[in-house]
């Protein structure tokens, strides 16, 4: 912390101490609109953008930095794998965002962040000055975390942990699994995007196999963890709908993934070797997106510590980190969490830049998982800031003995949430 303060003072010393403080509180030029740069056009970045636009009267000069022209939601993409969604309905165009008042979309990569000068430098060379920076780059995959796997190998052994081409590739590979074929899923170590995601995915794979009549195909999940989110609900669902199909093995049983060989579709664990798998889905260790790490906003865990009372980076009060890249305390990394953090961050940014009172933040999350048609379960909670972190205040979890009606309602609730969130992002 002291090093950070020193760096901050060094960077602003030439302005004089009084002016330095003033500069943090309000934009440099009072007559100009405050400049907000948002890196990353997922739920975190786009909900900040939406909230600032909704603040009205073209109050901010907002630039979204997003390399892609289209966004395929990673959330809900398991349902595409199961055949419950079309990829087209999960894909949205940034063209609509660019038409919002006061918003510019830069379809480029953020190359570096100059935090001393408060500028984002794009790969194309443009420099974007900011009064507040919103860092929402999501996750990067640690390709080195699974020996034998690589960025090149993701064509053979897809991760599909970012929405888009990888999701389509995994879907086509599931469709190509022969009856009697073996699917191996390598689950990630915590913390990672979407804690119940691997297990919902296994459910959707099993559903796809079942509806295709491939009753002899099997799914093995090699997990570095000893337990997982909604475990009891998932395992009861697997027993009910897919008996004998999904085998979940914790680290203590498989002894760890030693290596994979994409050429022979082999996975070697400490205990045994799975050779000639029909499909290997590698979901590797994850970190905050590259730009957040290179901007010096991460700690030793490779994610960004934040002040839970503001969502501002603990490394730099002019930078706000929302979504999967931040350390969300008791919240999981989810699209719901990202949007919740984004609303909180936007309210703080608005207060800081337009002179309003500091808002008291609160957060919420729900993660839904579909186990089979019309059988959805959920976990979630309400959260509030504390000195150390975002802290859980209350929690809920689907019951194991719920009626089919409740599970169907839960599914309908998830669909309504998806519609609302994507509308807030893209309409």
């Amino acid at each position, binding site marked *: 912390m002291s090093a950070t303060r020193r760096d901050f003072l060094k960077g602003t010393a030439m302005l004089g101490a009084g002016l330095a403080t003033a500069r943090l509180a309000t934009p440099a030029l009072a007559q100009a609109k405050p400049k907000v740069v948002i890196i990353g056009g997922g739920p975190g970045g786009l909900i900040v953008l939406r909230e600032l636009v909704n603040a009205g009267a073209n109050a901010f000069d907002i630039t979204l930095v997003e390399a892609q022209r289209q966004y395929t939601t990673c959330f809900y993409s398991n349902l595409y794998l199961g055949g419950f969604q079309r990829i087209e309905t999960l894909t949205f165009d940034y063209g609509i965002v660019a038409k919002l008042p006061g918003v510019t979309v830069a379809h480029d990569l953020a190359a570096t962040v100059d935090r001393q000068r408060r500028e984002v430098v794009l790969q194309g060379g443009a420099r974007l000055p900011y009064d507040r920076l919103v860092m929402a780059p999501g996750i990067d995959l640690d390709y080195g975390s699974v020996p034998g796997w690589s960025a090149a190998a993701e064509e053979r052994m897809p991760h599909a942990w970012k929405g888009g081409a990888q999701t389509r590739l995994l879907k086509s590979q599931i469709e190509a699994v022969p009856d009697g074929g073996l699917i191996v899923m390598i689950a990630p170590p915590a913390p990672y995007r979407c804690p119940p995601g691997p297990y919902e995915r296994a459910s959707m794979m099993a559903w796809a196999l079942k509806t295709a009549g491939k009753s002899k195909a099997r799914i093995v999940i090699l997990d570095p963890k000893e337990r997982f989110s909604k475990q009891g609900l998932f395992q009861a669902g697997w027993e009910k709908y897919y008996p*004998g199909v*999904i*085998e979940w093995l914790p680290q*203590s*049983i498989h002894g760890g993934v030693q290596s994979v060989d994409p050429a022979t579709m082999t996975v070697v664990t400490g*205990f*045994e070797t799975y050779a000639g798998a029909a499909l290997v889905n590698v979901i590797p260790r994850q970190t905050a997106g590259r730009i957040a790490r290179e901007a010096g906003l991460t700690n030793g865990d490779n994610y960004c510590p934040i002040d839970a009372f503001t969502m501002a980076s603990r490394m730099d009060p002019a930078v706000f980190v929302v979504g999967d890249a931040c350390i969300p305390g008791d919240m999981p990394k989810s699209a719901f969490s990202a949007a919740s953090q984004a609303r909180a961050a936007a309210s703080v940014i608005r207060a800081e830049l337009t002179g309003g009172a500091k808002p008291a933040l609160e957060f919420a999350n729900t993660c839904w998982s579909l186990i089979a048609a019309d059988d959805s379960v959920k976990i979630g909670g309400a959260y509030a800031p504390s000195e150390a972190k975002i802290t859980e205040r209350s929690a809920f979890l689907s019951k194991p003995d719920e009626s089919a009606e409740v599970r169907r309602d839960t599914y309908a609730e998830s669909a309504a949430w998806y519609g609302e969130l994507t509308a807030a992002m893209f309409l």
Partner: protein
Amino acid sequence: MALAPARISMPAEAKKGEIVEIKALVRHVMETGYRTDNRGQPIPRDIIKSFTVTYAGEEVFGMELNPGVSANPYVIFTTVATETGELVFTWTDQKGAATVERKLLAVVG
């Protein structure tokens, strides 16, 4: 079955006279009987007492387990490939209930 009670890792075939490594793991809590729950009540002992392996009808490995053995007992041993035959792995708990796994070893050459 979401959880397999036992897992065996060994080659499907071996040359006559070859030393074959066999890994066997059974999923079991191995509750010692010395612990108490969060209300201070003793947690009853629940352990596997013995593990034996026969190969073509003949015992090639055997051990006794006691409360000091950790959960999910994992055993690696070797045997000499003599003839094509079935290996039968038997874990017996303190109540006499057995978990049995079978694997065929084909001996060539």
